[in-house]
């Protein structure tokens, strides 16, 4: 057993060693390590291109091999990619393989190594991996030109939404580098101190001129350089949509599609996508010159089925769509031709047309569209080459447009274009009687009937209405009916009929014939039935009217009214079983009163007025205010009246009036309420609810107060327009009383004056009889009779009452008295003034009898003494010194005394003198002023005044005031008059 075990072990060991030997021999025989590995770069595609050979391959033998490739970046240990590449290898073959780098090759050194293994069935197991080739280093950086900053990849073309890695190489690590994509900073990953990479995910399409990405190197704030790239982002190529082909003539196939977005880029980086049409059965291909259609020539008549592939292609992508079809199923007919109409009459026509013949036994499906009167009808018909269709149920005198299109009936693909033509049907007689109404004006002896009718609708006119026939037939007396023809487009006519019943028939006529007649009967009785008017309220929609049904049979009702402002009679027919209707028309205007009359039509077609309604579609506020008169003005009241205000012509039913009163009083008068006006001021308001009450007595007013009043009507919509207030001022309470007193007084005075006038003679005689004239006196005649020539009647004018003669007489003694004032007195008193009471020579016409009047103002004592001496009153003279001057000397003395103010020279016997001289002597009131103000007595001698002074009054007080009175008497200004 042990021996067996030893044997067995030896066997296995031998086997194992044999096996080991075998493999070594194989490996030795086939050292399949890749050799001559060369790596090159392609900057445009950012790819590494590897080429190598495999030594020791059997001659003329192909072997399947697997190559494992490792790619490291920056350093060999940093493996970024490992992959297998399987291929068949021939003897002495140079193998090629490419790898595209995400990171631009310029930014990092790459290392590549490769190993292989046999993967061929002819070489059974075991297979071993060869050794790795040595690392092959690829560095593009070394080839960079001079510069401080480089950005890669340059001008790369990518599709929108793809991921791109960009990088920069900065020669100087001192520089701070910032990178931006379209002005927005991007942040990357530093690969080594000089290199930073940026992964841009899902890059967007910004513009077809490319996207700028740039980096700026700077130290501090100093820019050292700018470098960038343009990334060309292409839109994703879309699959062509709606690809289809069709033929119109079996010679050309016209293929169309929707190309979608154009992916062309600027800088010639990518042109617009190209389109190629490929037909698989024939194997033919055509490059399309247009981007959305292509024509394919049909060359073989036998080919019925086509398999088209449309290929869209740009630098980045290829897309295709496929259609498979039978040519006969893609027939797009040319539009029909020779469209025409035959046997056109009022309601029918035959339409004919032709289609282009495609082949024998070809059937078309055609569609006809008939447009007319705003309607459209559609008919389908199957034809061969010549089409024909009978159009019926047409409207007379109507223009129609008919058009037709066709398609292959056996394999419907699509309709052809339309071909159309217009035609007009012929006229027919109007189909309906015109709608007729009338208005009747009854006058003595006849009726004036105005007939109105509405034009027939196009549907019923069946052509152009040329005239209306009106036939008037007397129902009471057998007579010939009268026919009137009224040319269109008149819509009314006036008839004057006598007091008989008449039947009126109206027909509308066109070129073909007359319409059915519309019949109206005018009764002999005038239409003077009194019907009360009822007020109704309109709404936005119109007027809702209802009425009591007429007893007896009616064939219908008619409501008529007048349109404003055209004043055109309008009417509406209502059925016999209806007793209400809504009149709605756009013609209703707010603020206009509409009067509606409702008639019942009897079976005899006689209209009978049933009801009257009046109302506004919308009531408005009154348009004007009344003109208010103020009368009966008293101190406590006045009356306002506006009798001439018309309530009927207003844009609403007047409901009453508002009377506004403004006064200074805070409290409103009784019956008035406080109100605030639109301008914010307060006033009092009185409401009158009766529109016919057009006067108001405003009482309880204060006299002599100002009031402002304003009267405005109101409707349901509001008051009249704002206007100014009228001012009323109440008069004074007493003035009225005065009037009450003064008026009768004036009347009385007038009466008296009239009486006086009438009785003037009597009054004169009673109150002031005439003074008898002495010349006319009977005494005179008596005197004449006695013939006494000496006796005459004196004339008052002949009498000179008195005169003063002034006589100059020198007086030497006076000089001594004057003393020191000698010179003055000499000049002044050389001609003393003597006053005589003598008649002047001039005025004295001659010697004659004189009637003397006594001057009773002189003191009786003085006159009694018989002297005419003048004694001036000396202001300083004490009463005891005043004495009666009995001689001219005395008078002179007195004068001197006065002038010279001498003392103690008045004679003792003068104490009883109380005469005041008429002579005004110039004198100074003040003795001190005398020398400076000399007076000239001769010129001053003048008669001034004569007055008698009672003794007690003539005694002046010993004051200077007394002298003032003298000055007043002897004002020097008076002298030189």
């Amino acid at each position: 057993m042990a021996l067996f075990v030893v044997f067995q072990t030896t066997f296995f060991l031998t086997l194992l060693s044999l096996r080991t030997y075998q493999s070594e021999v194989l490996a030795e025989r086939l050292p399949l390590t890749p050799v001559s590995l060369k790596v090159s770069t392609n900057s445009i595609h950012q790819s590494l291109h590897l080429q190598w050979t495999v030594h020791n391959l059997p001659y003329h033998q192909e072997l399947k091999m697997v190559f494992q490739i490792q790619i490291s970046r920056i350093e060999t240990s940093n493996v970024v990619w490992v992959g297998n590449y399987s291929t068949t290898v021939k003897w002495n073959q140079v193998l090629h393989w490419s790898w595209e780098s995400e990171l631009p090759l310029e930014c990092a050194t790459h290392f590549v190594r490769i190993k292989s293994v046999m993967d061929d069935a002819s070489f059974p197991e075991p297979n071993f991996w060869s050794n790795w080739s040595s690392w092959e280093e690829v560095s593009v950086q070394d080839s960079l030109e001079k510069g401080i900053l480089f950005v890669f990849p340059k001008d790369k073309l990518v599709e929108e939404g793809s991921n791109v890695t960009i990088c920069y190489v900065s020669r100087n690590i001192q520089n701070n580098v910032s990178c931006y994509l379209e002005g927005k900073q991007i942040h990357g990953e530093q690969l080594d101190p000089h290199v930073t990479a940026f992964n841009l995910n899902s890059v967007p399409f910004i513009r077809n001129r490319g996207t700028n990405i740039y980096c700026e190197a700077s130290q501090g704030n100093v820019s050292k350089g700018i470098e960038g790239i343009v990334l060309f982002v292409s839109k994703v190529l879309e699959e062509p949509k709606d690809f289809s082909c069709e033929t119109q003539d079996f010679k050309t196939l016209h293929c169309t599609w929707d190309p979608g977005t154009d992916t062309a880029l600027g800088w010639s980086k990518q042109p617009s996508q190209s389109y190629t049409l490929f037909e698989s059965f024939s194997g033919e291909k055509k490059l399309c010159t247009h981007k959305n259609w292509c024509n394919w020539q049909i060359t073989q008549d036998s080919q019925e089925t086509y398999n088209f592939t449309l290929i869209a292609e740009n630098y980045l992508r290829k897309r295709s769509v496929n259609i498979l079809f039978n040519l006969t199923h893609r027939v797009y007919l040319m539009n029909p031709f020779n469209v025409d109409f035959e046997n056109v009459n009022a309601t029918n026509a035959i339409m004919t047309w032709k289609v282009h013949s495609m082949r024998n036994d070809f059937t078309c499906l055609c569609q006809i569209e008939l447009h007319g009167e705003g309607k459209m009808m559609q008919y389908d018909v199957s034809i061969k080459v010549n089409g024909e269709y009978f159009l019926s149920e047409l409207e007379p005198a109507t223009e129609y447009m008919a058009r037709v299109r066709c398609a292959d009936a056996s394999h419907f693909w699509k309709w052809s274009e339309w071909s159309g033509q217009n035609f007009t049907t012929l006229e027919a007689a109007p189909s309906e009687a015109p709608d007729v109404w009338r208005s009747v004006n009854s006058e003595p002896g006849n009726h004036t009937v105005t007939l109105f009718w509405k034009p027939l609708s196009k549907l019923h006119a069946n052509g152009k209405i040329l005239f209306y026939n009106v036939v008037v037939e007397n129902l009471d007396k057998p007579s010939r009916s009268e026919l009137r023809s009224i040319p269109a487009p008149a819509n009314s006519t006036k008839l004057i009929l006598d007091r008989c019943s008449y039947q009126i028939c109206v027909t509308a006529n066109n070129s073909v014939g007359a319409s059915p007649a519309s019949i109206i009967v005018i009764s002999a009785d005038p239409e003077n039935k009194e019907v009360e008017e009822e007020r109704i309220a309109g709404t936005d929609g119109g007027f809702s009217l209802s009425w009591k049904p007429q007893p007896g049979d009616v064939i219908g009702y008619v409501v008529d009214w007048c349109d404003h402002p055209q004043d055109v009679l309008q009417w509406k027919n209502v059925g016999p079983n209806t007793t209400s209707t809504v009149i709605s028309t756009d013609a209703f205007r707010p603020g206009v009163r509409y009067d509606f009359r409702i008639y019942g039509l009897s079976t005899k077609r006689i209209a009978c007025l049933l009801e009257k309604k009046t109302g506004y579609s919308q009531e408005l506020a009154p348009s004007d205010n009344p003109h208010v008169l103020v009368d009966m003005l008293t101190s406590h009241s006045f009356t306002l009246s506006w009798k001439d205000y018309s309530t009927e012509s207003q844009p609403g039913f007047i409901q009453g009036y508002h009377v506004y009163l403004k006064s200074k009083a805070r409290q409103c008068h009784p019956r008035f309420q406080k109100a605030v006006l639109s301008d914010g001021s307060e006033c009092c308001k009185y409401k009158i609810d009766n529109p016919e009450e057009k006067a108001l007595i405003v009482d309880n007013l204060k006299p002599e107060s100002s009031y402002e009043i304003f009267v405005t009507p109101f409707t349901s919509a509001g008051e009249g327009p704002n206007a100014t207030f009228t001012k009323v001022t109440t008069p004074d309470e007493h003035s009225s009383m005065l009037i009450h007193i003064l008026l009768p007084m004036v009347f009385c005075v007038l009466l008296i004056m009239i009486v006086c006038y009438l009785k003037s003679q009597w009054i004169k005689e009673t109150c002031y009889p005439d003074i008898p004239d002495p010349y006319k006196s009977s005494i005179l005649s008596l005197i004449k009779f006695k013939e006494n020539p000496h006796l005459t009647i004196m004339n008052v004018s002949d009498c000179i009452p008195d005169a003063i003669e002034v006589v100059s007489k020198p007086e030497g003694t006076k000089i001594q008295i004057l003393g020191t004032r000698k010179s003055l007195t000499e000049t002044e008193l050389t001609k003393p003034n003597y006053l005589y009471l003598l008649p002047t020579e001039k005025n004295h016409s001659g010697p004659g009898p004189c009637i003397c009047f006594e001057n009773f103002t002189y003191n009786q004592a003085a006159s009694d003494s018989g002297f005419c001496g003048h004694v001036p009153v000396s202001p300083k003279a004490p009463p005891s010194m005043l004495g009666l001057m009995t001689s001219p000397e005395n008078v002179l003395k007195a004068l001197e005394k006065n002038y010279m103010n001498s003392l103690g020279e008045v004679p003792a016997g003068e104490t009883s003198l109380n005469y005041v001289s008429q002579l005004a002597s110039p004198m100074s009131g003040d003795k001190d002023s005398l020398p400076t103000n000399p007076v000239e007595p001769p010129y001053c001698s003048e008669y001034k005044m004569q007055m008698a002074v009672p003794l007690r009054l003539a005694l002046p007080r010993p004051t200077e005031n007394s002298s003032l009175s003298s000055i007043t008497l002897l004002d020097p200004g008076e002298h030189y008059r």
Partner: protein
Amino acid sequence: LPPPAHLCLLTLLLPLLSSAAPISPAESISQAYSLALYMQKNTSMLLQTYLQYQGSPFSDPGFSAPELQLSSLPPATAFFKTWRTLDDGERLSLAQGAFLALTQHLQLVRDDQSDLNPGSPILLAQLGTARLRAQGLLGNMATIMTALGLPMLPEEDTLGLVAFGASAFERKCRGYVVTREYGHWTDRAVRDLALLKAKYPA
């Protein structure tokens, strides 16, 4: 461009076309100066229109990248003393060289833009007009140099080797530099010609 401007431009370009009659230096300087002044009015509008079509950051308000330069285009900036002490020949040669380069660059930018912005006739028209004016100014300068008896610059391809594979962003930058430098060189030409005008009064 309004019609009067066209006419004006035509008269300014006239000496370029009719080079038969000798023209005095003052007259030719005056004509060139007028054209340069006229050009100056439109340079900022060209730059703004250009930037507006390029997207961010170019179209951002206040965009400026003075560090961007083109090796094929001489910068217009110069030290004042150096510039002021240039003799007539140097001054005109520098300007002529710059505008020669500018005409070629403007054509390049217009080509670029007709590819990128085919739907922007305004920008393309403005670029075309700018190139025409630069050519007009070149002609005027040649007349001045002839009048002053200065040797003419041999016409050369200043653009040199163009990187046709330039990326879109690089082309946008290139266009920016060209339109910007066109403005700067026009400003400088106005100053140059003003100096000459003062030196050679009519």
